[in-house]
């Protein structure tokens, strides 16, 4: 009997690691309203919003003093977070009064991440930089850090606003969505049919991007057809298999595939390459340039959309320094971030990094992350 129960349990977990499919209607992980940008390059007008971040309790005066900082990304060991931690290290070196180290879970697991942060609160740090694996689950431990007088700044993946002071937003969701859909429309034509390969439907960033992409596509490229969205976890072979299945299912109808993660995008490009459909099926996606170089060089992929994660880490470290010094306080409208210049405050307690970068054959070799 134990055997039977165990097999059923194993099967359930197995099911999460194999494929998930979904019909065309998007029922993504959140019900937040979408805010598509203008179809041309007009920037969005941000509505003023009062500060909604948290604040540390009885924080000591850290102005000008060396800060002991721990950076806890979603996971360590992937190109993307290696790049953010390089940016943090660059900023620390430039500022001179930040003693930063990166320590994260070896896989993107919220429980491991909470344990790590808890340990650093106990051992005593001045500042915590984080990229949350789950916006809600991470909130209690971050509030504990604030209560211990630690400065807390997020980047890449947010927590609930009151659990941290500021969040460095790499790109607004609608900005990424516009860059992705515009690139796809340019490659497949205004009436192309496309599918999406994502990690899971409930991964916060990916769910928001897809919701914004749907809104922007309906507004600015109404003739494009969204066929389907499939899940592929953070699994390269599964991403490859899922893309192949989409190619097999739709045949010539499918003109483009969006990859929503830096694991899915190269795997999707590999599937298109091995199916000998380069030039017939466009691959547009979020990915680190290094992972995409072979496919861009082979002319199979023309647009890779991403912000610069080195700049993201760099900005996060500058924001933390400014918060500790008191130069970035609730109500501020911008913050100085070294070589990046003035970054603007949006949504109450977020700092916007800037417009996303579209990497192509012309510029991809200038980047190494």
């Amino acid at each position, binding site marked *: 009997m*134990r*055997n*039977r129960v*165990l*097999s*059923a349990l*194993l*099967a*359930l*977990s*197995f*099911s*999460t*690691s*194999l*494929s*998930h*499919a*979904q*019909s065309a209607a998007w*029922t993504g992980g959140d019900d937040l309203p979408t805010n598509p940008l203008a179809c041309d390059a007009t920037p969005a007008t941000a509505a003023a919003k009062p500060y909604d971040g948290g604040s540390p309790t009885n924080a000591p005066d850290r102005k000008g003093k060396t800060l002991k900082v721990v950076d806890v990304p979603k996971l*360590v*060991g*992937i*190109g993307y*977070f*290696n790049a953010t931690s390089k940016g943090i290290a660059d900023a620390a070196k430039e500022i001179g009064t930040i003693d930063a180290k990166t320590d994260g879970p*070896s*896989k993107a697991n919220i429980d491991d991440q909470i344990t790590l942060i808890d340990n650093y609160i106990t051992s005593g740090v001045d500042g915590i930089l984080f990229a949350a694996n789950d916006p809600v689950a991470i909130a209690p431990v971050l509030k504990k850090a604030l209560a211990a007088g630690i400065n807390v700044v997020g980047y890449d993946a947010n927590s609930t606003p009151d659990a941290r002071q500021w969040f460095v937003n790499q790109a607004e969701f609608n900005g990424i969505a516009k860059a992705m859909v515009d690139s796809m429309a340019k490659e497949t034509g205004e009436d192309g049919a496309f599918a999406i390969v994502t990690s899971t*439907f409930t991964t916060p960033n990916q769910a928001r991007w897809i919701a914004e992409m749907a809104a922007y596509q309906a507004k600015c490229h109404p003739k494009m057809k969204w066929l*389907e969205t*499939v*899940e592929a*976890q*953070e*699994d*390269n*072979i*599964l991403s*490859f*298999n899922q893309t*192949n*299945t*989409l*190619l*097999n*299912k739709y*045949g010539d109808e499918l003109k483009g595939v969006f990859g929503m993660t830096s*694991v899915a995008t*190269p*795997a999707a490009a*590999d599937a298109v*390459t*091995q*199916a000998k459909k380069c030039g017939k099926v466009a691959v547009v996606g979020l990915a680190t340039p*290094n*992972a995409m*170089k*072979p*496919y861009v060089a082979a002319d199979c992929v023309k647009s890779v959309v991403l912000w610069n994660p080195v700049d993201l880490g760099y900005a996060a470290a500058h924001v933390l320094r400014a918060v500790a010094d008191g130069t970035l306080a609730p109500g501020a409208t911008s913050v100085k971030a070294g070589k990046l210049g003035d970054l603007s405050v949006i949504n109450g307690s977020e700092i916007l990094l800037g417009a996303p970068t579209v990497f192509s054959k012309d510029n991809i070799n200038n980047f190494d992350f």
Partner: protein
Amino acid sequence: MSVIVDLPPTRPATERPGFLRRLFADYGQELVVLAAIIVLFAVVMLVNPRFISANNLTTIFAGNAYIAVAAIGMAMVIITGHIDVSVGALIGVLATISGTLAVAGYPVWIAWLAPVLVGMAVNACIGALVAYARIPSIVVTLGALSIMRGGLISFTGGTWITDLPPAFLIAQKSVFGLPVPLVFMVVLTVLAALWMRYSAFGRSLYAIGGNAEAALATGIPVERRTVAVFVIHGAFAGLATILFATQLQVIQSTVPPNLELTVITAAVIGGVSILGGSGTVIGSTLATILFATIGSALIFVNVSAYWLRAVIGLLILATVLADMLRRRGRL
């Protein structure tokens, strides 16, 4: 819990039931899984004939072959009464070794052979700790899992291996018009199944898994066999790595999450008793194919992801129920 050793071929010749009945008694779970695969193919084919296009069959059978190959070794370990939760991390380490050698310019056969040999060496250590130090295999392999996963990230620094030489990418090639991963999966499954059923060594594994003390009493060198089965499992992990590492043009420093669980599940759903002593490697391979088929089918029939677990749960219940009825009938 029964201590009866479930040895398929040892039925006394005096009571010979019909061929079909014997087939069902020996391979009940395997037949049920096979039937599920066939029914699924028939149904989805009617909804969308492209499901059985050559390309999609390749995706289903070749795309997950590395899991099936790893599950062969896992089935043997579980049949012997042990478990290995470190195989996913091991495959990650072996893929990095293999890719690094290939990029460094070593002949591709060295890059293919290395993961097999290193896999055997690593698992020899694990097997020795289990057999001679008598540490439960789940503890040893949990330790190995952490060491290898952490070590891999420290070693690679998270960078991906690119610029793999085209000759190295064996999983993308074909022999006699069949994709290499499919050939690997079928040949290895058949050889391992014959060996497990007809060799004295293979049959001793069932005896050890059924009742280690009884096996020892009958003269089976339990410790040596335990080390050996882990070494063989390491070789299969190495063979799985060859497929895993050569499927794409880049090798990532991270392995698919929960790969070890996926491999264990394939063995268990295929009819390998988690308590040891029964099951076959044919079952583990069929179970891998079943889940690959389900994954593809769900996309083809536009089943919402929110139905997925329900669908799989129903299939599992049906499979398990059929197996229970079969066992009840036999006892």
